[in-house]
């Protein structure tokens, strides 16, 4: 098929841009008639600016970013929608060897268990406070990111106040390992391969993973300028079909080596293929050669990973409210409700006859075992999707969730 749809897409060199990269490089886009031009960017701010002024039609974005734009929390924001999610999971929390030693003294074990690691970290912080030592500095990639919210959620659930007991700072992902090694930060939450890199260098230890804090939780999405979606609905639908096929290819175990080789190219990630295998297999070296398998570590396709659940967007919104980034009002919550667009996902993929969730939102954390769910077309299995502290998020009970969480963390 000849390319009839020209689409400009921005991406940040991170492993979870893989679905976009594969859509172009393996021809899934051109088979749908899309000439997908990829533009590598250096910051999320650049992605935002180029979406706003029309250089890009779509972009690889942090899941909460489009919400932040629509809630006008960022400068130069264009109305942005999310018709497709690019991945679930993929992040870890890594700390310096010194912090790890302190955590181990307080009961942490190399098992990636968030509850045990968090309890140890809380005791370490209490010890440090008693000695008058400075606050631990923990880095995330962006103030409106899954990293920021899952790190804060984990800390708070373990009795650590992320606003008072630690300093959370912003560091670009590729700089995380060096910043940790230089002692400028004590730990960070970031996507792979930037956790494994610190482990390989012997300068950090992985203490837990996003998939252990909240299994099957949202990470990157395809952000689309709303005016583009409205002006060129057929181009967008063709792109979503291409991304669907690309995501399926990325998930298949037999393609892991080829995917790692592709992403290793300088134009994309530019880090050795071997360093990308932990993200793909979920087998992570936590440090000192202790290998653990994290179930559902990174999902580019399975468990309806590409479906833009409104409950994901609403959970991000509750965390923006929780950490004082936005006021909870009826209008803001409506904006959060309208940003993710499962209707566009369904409309684009319907001709393919693939499994499509029937609901727009789900109760997050409700599934304790893999569960077949009501869907159009073929069968669809979701979950388990629990939060590590056993809480659930019911998007229909958002008021109750916000008021319960806004209390200080239990000490």
């Amino acid at each position, binding site marked *: 098929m000849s390319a009839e749809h020209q689409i400009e897409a921005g991406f940040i060199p991170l492993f979870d841009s893989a679905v976009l990269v594969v859509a172009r490089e393996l021809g899934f886009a051109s088979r749908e008639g899309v000439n997908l031009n990829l533009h590598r960017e250096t910051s*999320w701010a650049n992605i935002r600016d180029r979406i706003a002024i029309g250089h890009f039609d779509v972009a690889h974005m942090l899941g909460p970013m489009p919400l932040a734009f629509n809630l006008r929390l960022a*400068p130069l924001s264009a109305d942005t929608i999310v018709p497709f999610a690019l991945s679930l999971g993929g992040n870890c929390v890594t700390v310096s060897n010194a912090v790890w030693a302190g955590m181990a003294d307080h009961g942490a074990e190399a098992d990636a268990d968030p509850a045990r690691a968090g309890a140890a970290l809380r005791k370490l912080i209490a010890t440090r406070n008693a000695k008058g030592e400075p606050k631990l500095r923990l880095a995330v990639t962006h103030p409106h990111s899954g990293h920021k919210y899952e790190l804060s959620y984990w800390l708070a659930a373990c009795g650590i106040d992320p606003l008072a007991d630690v300093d959370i700072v912003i560091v*670009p992902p590729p700089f995380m390992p060096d910043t940790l090694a230089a002692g400028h930060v004590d730990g960070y939450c970031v996507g792979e391969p930037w956790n494994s890199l610190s482990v390989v260098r012997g300068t950090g230890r992985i203490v837990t993973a996003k998939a252990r804090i909240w299994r099957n939780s949202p990470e990157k999405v395809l952000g689309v300028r709303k005016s583009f979606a409205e002006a060129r609905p057929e181009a967008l639908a063709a792109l979503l079909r291409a991304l669907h096929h690309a995501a399926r290819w990325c998930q298949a175990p037999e393609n892991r080596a080829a995917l790692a080789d592709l992403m290793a190219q300088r134009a994309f990630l530019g880090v050795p293929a071997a360093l990308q295998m932990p993200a793909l297999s979920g087998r992570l070296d936590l440090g000192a050669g202790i290998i653990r398998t994290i179930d559902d570590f990174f999902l580019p396709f399975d468990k309806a990973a590409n479906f833009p659940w409104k409950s994901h967007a609403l959970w991000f919104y509750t965390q923006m409210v929780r950490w004082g980034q936005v006021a909870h009002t009826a209008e803001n919550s409506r904006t959060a409700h309208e940003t993710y667009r499962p209707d566009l996902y369904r409309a684009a993929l319907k001709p393919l006859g693939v499994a499509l969730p029937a609901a727009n939102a789900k109760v997050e954390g409700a599934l304790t075992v893999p569960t077949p769910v009501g869907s159009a077309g073929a069968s669809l299995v979701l979950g388990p999707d629990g939060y590590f502290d056993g809480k659930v998020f019911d998007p229909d009970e958002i008021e109750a969730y916000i008021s319960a969480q806004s209390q200080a963390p239990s000490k």
Partner: protein
Amino acid sequence: MSAGPTLKILVIDENKIRASIIDAGLRDAGYSEVTLMHEIAGIAARIEALQPDVIVIDLGNPNRDMLENMFQLSRAVKRPIAMFVDQSDTESIAAAVDAGVSAYVVDGLKQERVKPILEMTISRFNAFSRMARELEEARSELEGRKVVERAKGILMKSRGLSEPDAYALLRKTAMSQNRKISEIAQSLVTAAGLLGPGHDE
């Protein structure tokens, strides 16, 4: 120059040559309080000490997310800082992004006071890009000529050709393959390096 106290401008650019070109442009235009920073380390303290009215940063700098977060939260920044002045002025915003630069200004500054600074910065960024491009073209042409010379030498030695014949052979091959002479020459040099005990070493 307009009346009133001169604005304090901070230019954050890892490229020292470009930063000095911007600095010169701003000083020529009458802005005397220009500070250049090439590294991001310690930036919060610098901004706190400097209290700049306008901050200019190149878009290639991956620390924009960190900077924007700092502008929103840090106690180092006493006055709120916004991006550009007039967000409805999409034309100049697009011109800035095209040139590869972004600007942050303290709240309350008037558009007409900031616009000449932004325009000067954009024009200097564009001039630098042009210069860098011309330099790169000149460099690759020089490289190309060097590699053609080496390829000619290999042909002359291995096939006993005269210099004009060696060049004619390269040109003919390039034309028949629809490639540049320098590309053919490069392939030949690479192949010779692989095949033989060094023509060069």
